[in-house]
């Protein structure tokens, strides 16, 4: 017999970035309410940018998020560069790619080890984990340190980058720093292999729900910066047409806007990139995917973290090869490419740790007069709610505590970055 009433009410979900609530209400086995409320305070970045000099945009918008600071800075710079007719040098392109890998590695390691792993190991956080399994936590900290130091030598720090500017960089890594980094990246393979082994053993929930996955795509590389927008439902769009894909709408229970494309919702992030861009993964990343039994198209949302682990392998390998390329070329202290005009409009897109990010600026005589930022977590919200609605009826035989925990794990799997998306998360079962 169905339980008369089952409610889940998680106020300010933990181990996610920002503030969200999960609210579920089941009456006589029927799902009455199932929402992810975004209660983060509105941030108003688009309004803050208006009237500011174009040079400030990347510095202001990196402050949207402490975790994806490099991603926001990169998307911001690309938007400004396209608006003002700047084509960065080959060296800038390589340094930005390498720097970006530092952020993906840092963010994915943080999520896989410190935010998600405690759920599987039956602890509330990484702190008891540090006592129960110190080698696991020390491994995560070692890898994070390498990723952070990578960003440090290129842009000064990961949160918030300093040396990234319109048209290039204001500081350059020394050959000795790149050589030392290369050695540490190569040595990091052992810890990354152990991460793949850990995630091939964790009991990740097998819940499935088919959806549309969207990511940036390039034919010749696993794409994080620029490219085109591509969907697993078919279709490619130039990034300038992002509004045709995102279709933002405002809903009352969320200070972050919702989006939909060809279905009622779509997903972005590591799993989306894996599904869209599997062919472009490094061979070692494909081997890691096989070890975790991942083959596109994966429609298991809890496996987003496993897809992040695949990307950890990919980004490490690509970072090693980029470092080699840069060392071979030799780093030149070059001036940033000057702007070609002072007015224009541009869209910058990057696939940041949590998915596809768009920055769109209109610049008039060197000042930003219009700005729009579309954030990965915002794009995932409608899809998370659709997953919640599909998942709840299948687990109603479990205790309320277990259902709550499962819902928290589901939301956490998306690695939501809520302060980003409001330009939010809390699980509330009512």
């Amino acid at each position, binding site marked *: 017999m169905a339980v008369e009433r089952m409610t889940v009410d998680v106020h300010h979900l933990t181990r996610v970035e920002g503030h969200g609530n999960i609210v579920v209400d089941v009456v006589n086995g029927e799902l009455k309410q199932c929402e992810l409320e975004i209660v983060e305070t509105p941030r108003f970045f688009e*309004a803050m940018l208006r009237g500011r000099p174009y040079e*400030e945009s990347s510095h202001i918008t990196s402050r*949207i998020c402490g975790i994806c*600071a490099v991603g926001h800075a990169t998307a911001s710079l690309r938007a400004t560069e396209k608006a003002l007719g700047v084509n960065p040098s080959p060296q800038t392109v390589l340094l930005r790619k390498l720097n970006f890998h530092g952020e993906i590695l840092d963010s994915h390691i943080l999520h896989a080890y410190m935010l998600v792993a405690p759920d599987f190991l039956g602890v509330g956080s*990484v702190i008891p984990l540090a006592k129960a399994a110190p080698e696991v936590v020390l491994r995560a900290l070692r890898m994070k340190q390498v990723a952070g130091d990578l960003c440090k030598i290129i842009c000064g*720090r990961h949160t918030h980058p300093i*040396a990234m500017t319109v048209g290039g960089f204001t500081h350059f890594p020394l050959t000795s720093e790149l050589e030392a980094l290369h050695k540490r990246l190569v040595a990091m393979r052992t810890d990354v292999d152990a991460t793949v082994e850990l995630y091939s053993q964790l009991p990740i929930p097998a819940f499935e729900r088919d959806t549309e996955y969207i990511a940036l795509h390039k034919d010749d590389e696993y794409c994080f910066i620029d490219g085109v927008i591509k969907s697993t439902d078919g279709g490619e769009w130039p990034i300038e047409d992002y509004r045709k894909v995102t279709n933002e709408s405002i809903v009352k229970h969320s200070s972050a806007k919702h989006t939909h494309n060809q279905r009622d919702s779509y997903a972005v992030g590591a799993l989306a990139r894996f599904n869209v861009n599997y062919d472009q993964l490094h061979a070692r990343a494909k081997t890691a995917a096989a070890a975790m039994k991942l083959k596109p198209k994966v429609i298991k949302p809890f496996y987003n973290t496993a897809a992040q682990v695949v990307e950890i392998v990919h980004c490490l390998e690509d970072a090693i090869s980029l470092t080699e390329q840069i060392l071979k070329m030799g780093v030149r202290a070059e001036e940033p490419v000057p702007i070609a005009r002072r007015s224009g409009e541009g869209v910058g897109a990057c696939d940041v740790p949590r998915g596809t990010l768009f920055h769109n600026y209109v610049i008039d005589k060197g000042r930003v007069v219009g700005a729009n930022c579309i954030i990965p977590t915002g794009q995932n919200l409608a899809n998370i709610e659709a997953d919640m609605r599909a998942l709840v009826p299948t687990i109603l035989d479990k205790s309320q505590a277990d259902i709550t925990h499962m819902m928290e794990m589901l939301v956490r799997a998306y690695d939501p970055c809520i302060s980003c998306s409001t330009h939010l998360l809390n699980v509330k079962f009512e």
Partner: protein
Amino acid sequence: MTTQTLPRIAFFEFTSCEGCQLTVVDTLQAHPELLNVVEIVQFREAMSERGEDYQIAFVEGSCTRPHDETRLKEIRQQAKIVVALGACAHLGGINAIRNRQPLEEVRQYVYGDKADWFDTYVARPIEAVITVDAVIPGCPIDRNEFAMAVSHLLQGRMPNIPDYPLCIECKLMENVCMFQRGKACLGPITRSGCGAICPAYGDGCEGCRGLIPKPNIESLKQVLREHGMSEEEIDAKMTMFLTYQKMRLEEKR
């Protein structure tokens, strides 16, 4: 030592990017021993356990809505020591940039005719609402300064944050002056203690650590004019992190 005897600390966040708390996590990479000398009872971004019996509260983020005031006052009532963590809590940070425009316009620009659904008002540092005992400045905070501040607090004294201008630290770092490199810099009026990290990486100081006690703003403006900056550009430079402080100074005058 049993955990009951360790000082209990908690982390809270208001309007911010949570980058300062991430920097706290990063600090633990280099200083894991910190975990042996305190008990963290609340840190929502990193842990599910939640305790309300904290003695030291680290607060990140600005107060930007009426609801924040209530929570801040609860934290103040519980904690013996409240520490503002980073520029958003300390200065209003970049959140205060929006205070330069009428609030209604800002809300409508982002949320259109649904603007009324989301509660907000002027962005302020937390000291506008509660008494703050100590500040760890910066956007983000400097991890070494955070470790030092915790060590000072555990010794029963307030963190020793420099109140001399950044230029002093920058000279000691042997950086080439940003003005020599043709770039604008707020070093002369900004509080030191970050290791002059922005000039070291080729960018002028943006003032994220706040004004020194007696800043000579007019003199710096003159220098910026002499370097060819327009009044508009100077105003922008001075308001990335300093909007709130600067507006307060102007009100006093």
